[in-house]
């Protein structure tokens, strides 16, 4: 019995198992390799740009003074977009999670997700052909009535193609992602906290103030950060709506507007040659670093929530 049974328990390692786990590890390693390649190739192609002379930089005297206004434009446009989008996104998320009838809520979520499905080039087309003419009267009104605020000083651009229009388009584009994340967080609010607040006689809004918002704050922050990350890297909408010029300016309504890194690349890359290509790639690397930093902040906030969420 022993003699016949012993071989039944022993077996060579299965080729299937080794091939399968090998494939899985390889696939995982490919991702490591891809990211390493992204970093290496971008850096390799960027290095020549750092020492480039003024001739190839459209007037700027060094790479850093060339990329400076672009960085400003990128942050400015994305920041404006976030300011516009965040309150609305919070409202929608609350509406779906705590106000809308339960049966409707999911359908409403889908409707907002539809916005995320619209390709950016279509947003660009819409922004320039529909939104810009539509907001122009508003800009005139703003500049006439609150023009004493430097932000809104004139003369108003004749086309409506200003940084504010870009910011509105970007806001619409990042609305779905911020909404979706906030909605998830709000839905996770511990039922007991909510019921405790309601049991104390709070109105729905007071309950949200007491239970939902404090619980969701880290989630809201990280959602905003991820939305900002999206807005920073968005290319086509900006490239199509803005008539670009390279400068640092805070005014919202005039025809001279700072452009963004991504849009600058998209507009100039098809015609770029020689060292110009390297300069553009280097600006892309700068953009990558900025979005990486923003996303890293978002991730840190999310992780801190995981550690602290006492409510499980």
């Amino acid at each position, binding site marked *: 019995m*022993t003699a016949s049974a012993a071989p039944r*328990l022993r077996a060579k390692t299965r080729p299937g198992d080794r091939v399968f786990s090998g494939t899985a590890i390889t696939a995982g390693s490919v991702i490591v390799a891809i990211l390493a390649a992204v970093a290496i190739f971008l850096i390799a192609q960027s290095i020549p740009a750092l020492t480039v002379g003024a001739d190839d930089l459209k007037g700027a005297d060094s790479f850093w003074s060339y990329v400076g206004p672009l960085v400003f434009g990128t942050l400015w446009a994305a920041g404006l977009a976030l300011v516009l989008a965040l309150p609305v996104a919070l409202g929608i998320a609350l509406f779906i999670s705590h106000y809308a009838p339960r049966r409707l809520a999911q359908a409403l979520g889908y409707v907002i997700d539809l916005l995320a499905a619209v390709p950016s080039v279509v947003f660009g087309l819409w922004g320039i052909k529909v939104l810009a003419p539509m907001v122009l009267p508003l800009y005139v009104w703003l500049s006439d009535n609150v023009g004493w605020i430097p932000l809104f000083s004139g003369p108003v651009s004749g086309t409506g193609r200003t940084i504010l229009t870009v910011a509105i388009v970007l806001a619409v584009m990042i609305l779905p992602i911020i909404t979706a994340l906030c909605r998830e967080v709000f839905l996770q609010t511990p039922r007991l906290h909510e019921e405790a607040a309601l049991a104390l006689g709070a109105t729905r809004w007071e309950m949200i103030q007491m239970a939902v918002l404090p619980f969701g704050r880290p989630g809201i922050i990280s959602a905003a950060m991820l939305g900002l990350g999206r807005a920073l890297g968005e290319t086509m909408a900006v490239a199509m709506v803005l008539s670009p010029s390279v400068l640092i300016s805070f005014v919202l309504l005039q025809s001279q507007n700072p452009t963004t890194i991504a849009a600058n690349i998209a507009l100039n890359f098809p015609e770029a040659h020689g060292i110009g290509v390297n300069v553009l790639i280097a600006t892309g690397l700068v953009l990558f670093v900025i979005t990486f930093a923003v996303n890293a902040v978002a991730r840190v906030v999310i992780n801190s929530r995981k550690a602290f969420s006492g409510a499980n």
Partner: protein
Amino acid sequence: MSKRIVVDDLNVFYGSFKAVEDVTLAIEPRTVTAFIGPSGCGKSTFLRTLNRMHEVIPGARVEGKVLLDGDDLYAPGVDPVLVRRQVGMVFQRPNPFPTMSIRDNVLAGVKLNNRRMSKGDADELVEKSLQGANLWNEVKDRLAKPGSGLSGGQQQRLCIARAIAVEPDVILMDEPCSALDPISTLAIEDLIEEMKNDYTIVIVTHNMQQASRVSDRTAFFNIAGTGKPGKLIEYDDTATMFSKPSVQATEDYVSGRFG
């Protein structure tokens, strides 16, 4: 078909935490052995070491020997996959494969291992296994329906049919009735009684009445406190364990003074 299990000085660790300490016992073929004890005493963990299922949990490892008719399950070169074909297992919650029909669930052990089988042989195996699990009469008209459509008790018997279709020597049951209602529990207990003619059966249970009803031998595990390893306190004939156990802790437990 039925085999003898001898456990010699077995320790189980999760990482650096020792979960079970110094277990030595022998389980005879064609018997039902019950493991009882309070929660967290390591009886389920120990059960899993009898077919190396604990290896699924990251960081779990054992020291010591488990002999199945003299073959050490933990000898170098032993393949856990082949161990599990000889030592089957039924879990706490019924877990039929949701993507498979009742018939395919019974044949899962064959089909998942890519083994070829003629339709006649397969039909025969399905009927034999379902008969063996007392389920044939209830499902013979709907073998093509998904297994998840059955009641909880039927699902658990389907899982037993699935386990015996592999033709193991030993069947381990980890609290097989804890998710079931009393009538389904009775059906399973009757089934265990019949199955012990063919298999060595080891069952973990929280229910002392169940242990006294179905088992021939009973092992009592206990734990000195949280963070301490579980130990085998006493192992004897079931009748002795429940009437005049030799250790005070066993007496306290079976009489319901703690646990």
